[in-house]
């Protein structure tokens, strides 16, 4: 079964670029337009990786991450942040507090994003059931 990746961003062209790159690498990609939509998607199915923007309507990326970490079955979900506020966020604090694996600053490289996702998923012993 292909690994499932949930990408959350309010910019459709960012979603499209990331989705295209990850799909081409063989992953199953779900998209969400804001934090609320991502949270609802997470309730339906648990992905193997969550990639989220920070500044979004309704529910922002930090609120989403907090909710995810408070949920028992999502506690170990690998999370990447993809944000234009890359320099304003404390990567160490995000890693320590919410176990965010990496913060990728926009403009981002789809290639680099794929490499990071692959590195995490290769470490996982068995595919997660969605």
């Amino acid at each position, binding site marked *: 079964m292909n690994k499932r990746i949930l990408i959350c961003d*309010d*910019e459709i*062209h*960012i979603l*499209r*670029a*990331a989705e*295209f*790159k990850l799909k*081409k690498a063989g992953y199953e990609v779900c998209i969400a*337009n*804001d934090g609320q939509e991502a949270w609802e998607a997470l309730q339906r199915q648990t992905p193997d990786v969550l990639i989220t923007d920070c*500044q*979004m*309507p*309704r529910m922002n990326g930090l609120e989403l991450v907090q909710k995810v970490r408070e949920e028992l079955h999502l506690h170990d979900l690998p999370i990447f942040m993809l944000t*234009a*506020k890359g320099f*304003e966020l404390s990567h160490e604090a995000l890693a320590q507090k919410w176990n965010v694996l990496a913060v990728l600053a*926009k*403009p*981002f*490289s*789809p*290639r680099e994003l794929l490499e990071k996702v692959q590195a995490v998923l290769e470490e996982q012993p068995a595919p997660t059931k969605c």
Partner: protein
Amino acid sequence: MSIGNSNKLPLETLLPAAVAFGAGWLGDWIFDGGSLLRQAACASLCALAVAGVCWWLNYRKRCEEQACRNYFEALCRVDPQSVPADTAHLGLPRPPKDPLWKHLGEMAGERLLQLYRRIEDLEHARAAWEVRCLRAGERAEQMEQALAALAEPILAVDEHDRLLFANRGAAELFQLDMDAALGKVLSEVLHCRQLAQLLLSTRRHRSALARTEEIEITDASGRGRCFKATAMNLSASHKGAQHEGGALVMLRDFSDQKNLQKRNAEFVSAVSHEMKTPLAGIKAYVELLADGDVEDEATREEFLQIINSQADRLQRLVDNLLNLARIEAGVVQVSKQPRSLNELLEEALRVVQPTAEAKQIQLVADLSPLYLGVLVDRDMMLQAAINLLSNAVKYTPNGGRVTLRSRLTDEQARFEVEDTGVGLSEEDCRRIFEKFYRVQKDKNMAQGTGLGLPLAKHIVEDVHGGRLTVESKLGQGSTFIVTLPLAGHA
């Protein structure tokens, strides 16, 4: 005698000798060759003459002594106030004629005059000091009044950290009951520990340099305000030596400056975010194309279009930023001419029509049949109208309606853009014209620069002297209202 005319023989010596000599010589001449009796008579006559002269001299001496006594008594009775300063001698008694006493009298008189003048000088100095003291007292009172009237809160403590002074600003800020607080140890009456500590440490360090700290203080209304507190020592000098004399602190409210800095930082952050978003698209799609990830022509075409649209978006953002900056700086070239507002609005409608059609939004033109002549810069006012219409279309769900209405009201031209969109909260209405402010709900409905409405407001209000307001309720759509002076009244 050596006092007086020392080169002349004194009268008391010469006169009896001269009288005795003269009487002897006269007797010899009268009784020359006479008997013993005549000689005795002559000698008696001489003695009588000498005795007479001596008596006369003694009498004259007593008269002189009396004159001297009278003189000195008169000198003692002289009223200093009656002695004129410049012609002081006129106010003194005449000294005795005797050369000895005359000289002593003159010296005593001169000394007395000097003393009088000294007293007079001291009197003047005392009067001058009294005036200076009075003025110093007045100045101190004025300074206290000035300090009390200053808006900046000022506090002072004495060398024992007791509250010495607090002006009205300080009393209000710290809610001090001055009657009770004065003279009390500062830490007992001041709830702001940081400020009390600053004053205390400044006083103890006795540095000549002022110390400044940023302090956040909650005022009586509960509002947090930022102050720059500058504390300095009050050194007291006594007989040339410096003594510890307490400390003073002045607070300057720089909350507005702080807020401005915060807004500037937010603005830079927002600009950065708004620029990075299209840049992210351009970079990502360029990389996908360059890496050869795209295999079919349709996808390649799609990606190129995305790159193009993101580049356009970036350009719009930069243009809007520049326009806004130029208008704010007042360096924009404005060419105002009388125009028909309706014609201008019809043109704006034509521009946004395709976007509205794409969302199946009904674009309604309800324009006044009257000619609404306005004195405007055509391009700028067209830009403002397009921005308002585009904004309405962006925030109106598919299938909604946007109405453009124009009217003549109270010698003003008025146009409104009314939509059936998501509406605005009270906070949204208050902040909607801020740069990069995005409505919290349904942000994902629109993709804008966050500068369209601020730009429209600047164009309408700053450039054309009109007014742009918004009326809205959440879920009930919004109406943006523009009023402009008519061409003849502009």
